């Protein structure tokens, strides 16, 4: 009898060096929940060929958005085994808005399951932050520290705008890192993997064009399409027009359109500032981005036509910041109402909303007719009216996902374009902003 045919060339893993404490966790000496979490972290380390594990200082968990029974069973099993997070841990958006019951139109069974999932993570000691923008909360990661963050926009912001270090964590890995406090030394935790390999020359984009959040979303779309998952450095941008809200817009869109987890902006982001004249290296490949690139990106993120009837405006993806509330309040202060057929939605976190109320910004938005959503986001679960056909947004990420998730047409525009359109009840484009 001859042996059956078989594949040779199965790849063997590299050696993973575990500390004594790692071994103790794996062996169950710190309890069954820690052992279960450690098994997944060790497996992740083997997949990513990490030589060892490292400590993290905080975690951000994305697993609290309900995708089905398995995610709930996993979280509840950990909670039942007595799991608790070992580092400060924040929670990403959920499937519900607990402050505004009834706003999200899920069936009762799914609502109950989504709530149980949220409860399981809170039972493990994670903070009930329910936001995709944990970087807007107090106690955010310091430059150079290792963290385990999930959610693509949070990952890219932590790496790029804060100079903290996180690999691309997602479902299951995030909570296991929070419980064990350990992650594989791999990916963007490794200094060598953080150096830009591509320069994007933005000196051809007029500074006045970049003085708008939507322009940074369009820029992010172009960056993602151009670099994929590579680390790039943007040059030729006046640091005066760069702020955290704009870096948020760039990163969130680039993570959606290309899988970007780290970008640098010369003279702006902390690692680029620290590198000074050493970045970009003189032999780096260089690609030029122009105002034409931005307009093309804007139009790629737009499926409706100027002049179309507008049913909704959605802003705050990722979650609206206090400074964005302040800017919006300025625009709304003249008191001109929104068109009755157009609803303006603002997604934010409960923490930022509390600050926006204290400052009076939230009341101004509500007086103008805007509706506030917390704990979740308008493109993840049914919130907008079923009759909405066309919506406008400042968010590149929302514009990227909404047509497929919700079956609607979208328009990417600046906050001024969005508000002018909401008041007119039809899509208004101010081309001067984009030239």
């Amino acid at each position, binding site marked *: 009898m001859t042996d*059956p*045919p*078989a*594949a*040779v*060339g*199965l*790849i063997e*893993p590299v050696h993973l060096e575990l500390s004594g404490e790692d071994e103790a966790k794996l062996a169950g000496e710190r309890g069954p929940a820690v052992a*279960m979490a450690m*098994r*997944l972290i060790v*497996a*992740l380390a*083997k*997949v*990513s*060929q990490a030589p060892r594990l490292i400590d993290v200082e905080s975690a951000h968990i*994305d*697993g609290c*958005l309900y*995708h*089905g*029974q*398995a*995610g709930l*069973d*996993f979280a509840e*099993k950990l909670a039942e085994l007595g799991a608790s997070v070992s580092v400060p841990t924040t929670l990403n958006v959920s499937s519900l808005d607990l402050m505004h019951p009834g706003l999200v139109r899920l069936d009762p069974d799914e609502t109950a399951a989504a709530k149980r999932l949220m409860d399981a993570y809170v039972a493990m000691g994670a903070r009930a932050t329910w936001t995709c923008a944990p970087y807007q909360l107090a106690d955010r990661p310091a430059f150079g520290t290792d963290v385990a963050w*999930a959610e*693509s926009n949070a990952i890219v912001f932590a790496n790029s705008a804060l100079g903290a270090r996180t690999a*691309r*964590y*997602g*479902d*299951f*890995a995030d909570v296991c890192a929070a419980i064990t406090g350990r992650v594989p030394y791999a990916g963007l935790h490794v200094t060598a993997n953080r150096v830009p390999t591509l320069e994007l020359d933005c000196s051809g984009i007029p500074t006045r064009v970049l003085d708008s959040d939507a322009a940074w979303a369009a820029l992010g779309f172009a960056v993602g399409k151009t670099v994929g998952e590579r680390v790039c450095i943007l040059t030729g941008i006046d640091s005066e027009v760069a702020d955290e809200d704009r870096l948020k817009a760039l990163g969130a869109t680039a993570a959606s359109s290309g899988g970007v987890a780290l970008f640098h902006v010369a003279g702006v982001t902390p690692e680029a500032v620290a590198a000074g004249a050493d970045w970009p290296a003189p032999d780096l490949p260089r690609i030029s981005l122009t105002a034409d690139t931005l307009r093309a990106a804007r139009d790629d993120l737009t499926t409706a036509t100027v002049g179309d009837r507008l049913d909704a405006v959605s802003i705050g993806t990722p979650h609206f910041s206090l400074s964005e509330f302040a800017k919006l309040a300025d625009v709304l202060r003249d008191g001109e109402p929104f068109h009755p057929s157009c609803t303006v939605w603002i997604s934010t976190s409960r923490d930022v909303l509390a600050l926006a109320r204290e400052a009076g910004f939230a009341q101004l938005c509500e007086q103008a007719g805007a509706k506030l959503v917390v704990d979740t986001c308008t493109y993840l679960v049914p919130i907008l009216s079923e009759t909405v056909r066309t919506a406008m947004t400042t968010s590149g990420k929302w514009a990227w996902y909404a047509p*497929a998730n919700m079956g609607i047409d979208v328009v990417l525009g600046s906050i001024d374009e969005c508000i002018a359109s909401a008041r007119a009840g039809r899509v208004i484009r101010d081309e001067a902003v984009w030239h």
Partner: protein
Amino acid sequence: MLCEGDGCGEVLWLDEPLSFWGGTDIATAVITDVHHPQHGISLAGRVLVMSASRGSSSSSSVIAEQVRAGVAPAAIVLSSRDAIVVLGALAAAEVYGTRLPIVLLGSAALEGLPRTGNVCVRADADAASVTW
């Protein structure tokens, strides 16, 4: 070896990377991505040969859910280190005790696999094999 287990089934080569989240039906494992050339084919019970998954880390949850529902592939043969696929299988193994074997093959070995017919994957802590 990336995940332990035994599994046999009719081999299915994925022509392009696939996002399990948004690209497959969570309850049936049928490919729903209209841009994918194998749109409409079910992954259930097949030995899946693929380079890598694509897109969202929520794919881990979808794979775990498909294991729970009994519609996951019988085994997966990967040619790249895809943590999203592995985490989904490992999470399901922890919660349900159902093992979805996953092995990593070099590109030359991968090319030697048959395009059709029955294939078996066996993987434990010390050794792994792909036979047909």
